[in-house]
């Protein structure tokens, strides 16, 4: 491609670990002000809140001494939100009116959804920059229908057997068509890696309920041999224990999935000849997740901004860029603005396609 460093092959440069410089107490202040203003403006401020939140996180992610930046404009986001809100309101009202009419309304929505999600990816990257150079996403909409509609349908038809492949195709679609300035990203993870990840994840999820079942039968057996009805406190404790074991399984499987997924994606993504490596430490991830949960519940939710910052720090700082040459040589160009509609629909549907 055009950037100079591709011609000078394999200039060794020091690995650059991503740094996260945000702090919980700083983000807490942004978060609480965002929350209050969003409530008192009946949600209108949420567009401005989103920009401030993303700017805080982007600017505090540092690569080679420079932060990232977010350039989305609140008014564009607000427009997107209003349209998305109306759209879902219509769908909801249609369902309330009659199930059949609701389903009829959903068909066109399902048909335009992939297109919206493509726009969402485009918006997000277009308004992201590092050192003043914008990222970009230029995939065909047809490819979007393939990964957002055809693959998921195929996965559904095969009862999930094809889902790991579908997931891999989705990430490949995202990363193969992303660029930074004029430099292109590429994605090299195999379907095998995704199948291995899902197999281990489901095994963790399956083994633990079996353990829980064994525990409960043992307990029940012991109580039955006592010959009289066990006191309700014992039953309560036993069910809590079984529930806790179940929960542990879900938690372990989830943690494994979060860390493994990030690692697979970033270990197999390249920017021209620059590589990345990701190694999310499972122990630290477990600690941060659990303590975040406990503290968030115990503080009536006020710990949440601290929790978000802790998790962001852990996950961001697990990524290192391994440059094949200087990071000062990327070049780019100005491009047209992108509207925020797709992004906001994605947000409303809670589709996280960011990482």
């Amino acid at each position, binding site marked *: 491609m055009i950037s100079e460093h591709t011609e000078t092959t394999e200039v060794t440069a020091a690995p650059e670990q991503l740094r996260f410089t945000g702090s919980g107490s700083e983000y807490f202040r942004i978060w609480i002000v965002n929350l209050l203003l969003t409530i008192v403006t009946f949600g209108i401020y949420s567009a401005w809140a989103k920009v401030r939140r993303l700017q805080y996180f982007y600017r505090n992610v540092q690569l080679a001494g420079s932060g990232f930046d977010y350039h989305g404009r609140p008014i564009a986001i607000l427009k997107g939100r209003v349209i998305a809100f109306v759209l879902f309101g219509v769908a909801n009202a249609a369902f309330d009116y009659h199930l059949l009419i609701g389903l009829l309304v959903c068909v066109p929505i399902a048909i335009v959804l992939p297109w919206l999600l493509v726009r969402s990816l485009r918006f997000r990257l277009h308004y992201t920059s590092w050192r*003043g150079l914008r990222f970009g996403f230029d995939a065909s909409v047809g490819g979007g229908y393939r990964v957002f509609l055809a693959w998921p349908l195929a996965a559904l038809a095969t009862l999930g057997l094809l889902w790991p492949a579908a997931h891999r195709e989705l990430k490949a679609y995202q990363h193969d068509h992303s660029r930074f300035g004029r430099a292109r990203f590429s994605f090299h993870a195999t379907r095998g890696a995704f199948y291995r990840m899902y197999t281990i994840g489901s095994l963790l999820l399956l083994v633990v309920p079996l353990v829980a079942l064994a525990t409960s039968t043992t307990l029940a057996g012991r109580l039955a041999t006592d010959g009289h009805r066990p006191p*309700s406190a014992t039953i309560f404790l036993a069910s809590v224990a079984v529930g806790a074991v179940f929960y542990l399984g879900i938690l372990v499987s989830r943690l494994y999935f979060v860390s493994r997924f990030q690692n697979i994606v970033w270990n197999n993504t390249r920017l021209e000849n620059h590589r990345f490596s990701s190694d999310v430490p499972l122990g630290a991830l477990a600690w941060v997740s659990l303590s*975040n949960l406990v503290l968030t519940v115990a503080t009536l939710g006020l710990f949440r901004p601290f929790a978000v910052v802790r998790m962001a720090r852990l996950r961001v700082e697990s990524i290192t860029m391994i440059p094949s040459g200087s990071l000062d040589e990327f070049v780019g160009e100005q491009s047209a603005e992108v509207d925020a509609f797709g992004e906001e629909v994605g947000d409303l549907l809670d589709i996280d396609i960011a990482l």
Partner: protein
Amino acid sequence: MDTISCRYFDGRSTRPRTVTLAVRDGRAIVEGDDVHREESLESIRVSERMGGAARLVSFPDGGYCEVHDQASLTALLGATGHRESAVARLQSRWSLVLLAVAACLGLAAFTYIELLPWAARHVAAHIPDSAVSAMSTQTLALLDRRLLEPSSLPAATRERLADRFGRMVPPDGAAVPHRVVFRASPSLGANAFALPSGTIVVTDGLVKLADDDDEVLAVLTHELGHVHGRHGLRQLLQSSVVGLFVTWYLGDVSSLVAAVPAALLRARYSRDLEREADAYAARMLRLNGMSPRLLVTMLRKLERGTERGSASEAREDASTGYLANHPATGERIRSLEQE
């Protein structure tokens, strides 16, 4: 005036240039490695302070200075008369932040205590009767398959109770359409509950627990209170909203942990509804020349029954009965006795 050393990016490449930033005669001046720019202050944008992150001084063409030296920049901005946005000032003052915390907590409490019950009452009142009765028919059919069996009470007893209850005058001059049905249920024990459509299910166990018809009627007035206030629907709406919110808020986490705070938050709502139904029952009993103490007696008996473990807590969410609320029974008896 002082100059600030920083890095300049031209917006077209990632090459950093070490420069100094200064303000002279109302113009910003950037000087350093092959860079010399002068721009009027009006055309320049300064990014908001975002904690310790570098602040960006941007020019209209996309070039910008990345300033890590926050103290010097703040001094420079102060000297040029730059005003931070109102939101940025709000965020930077802890006293205002604490005020925001208090305001948010206050609003959350207000929503939970006043707004949501109010909204649930209004929404419940506007749910079409056809939807309500369809829902209730389904629930009763489900209960009949799973938990309930045909009543083994003599038909005469059932008819007498239904007939006497049908002739009682409802309070507030508002007739509440209802239907009393009798069922046996080993798993529910002595119990009664109302479905939102007005179907009141009484178990054989409850009728046997009562010493006379009046005590059964007292329980029925309480259930009619639930029907009158559309409590089943309100509880369903409030619980759904609380559940959705808690799950969303603890999002990342798991539904199991989210279930605990959600259950705690819901408990208050069901307590409130029980109290409302108790008050309705007391009014109705007195209106018909009966004593609210009848309900107290029944509550006591039911509470003893629960302690013996003769009744299980299996209940449909859409119905409101006695057993889910037994921890508050003592309090309910006290407030009924004051009626």
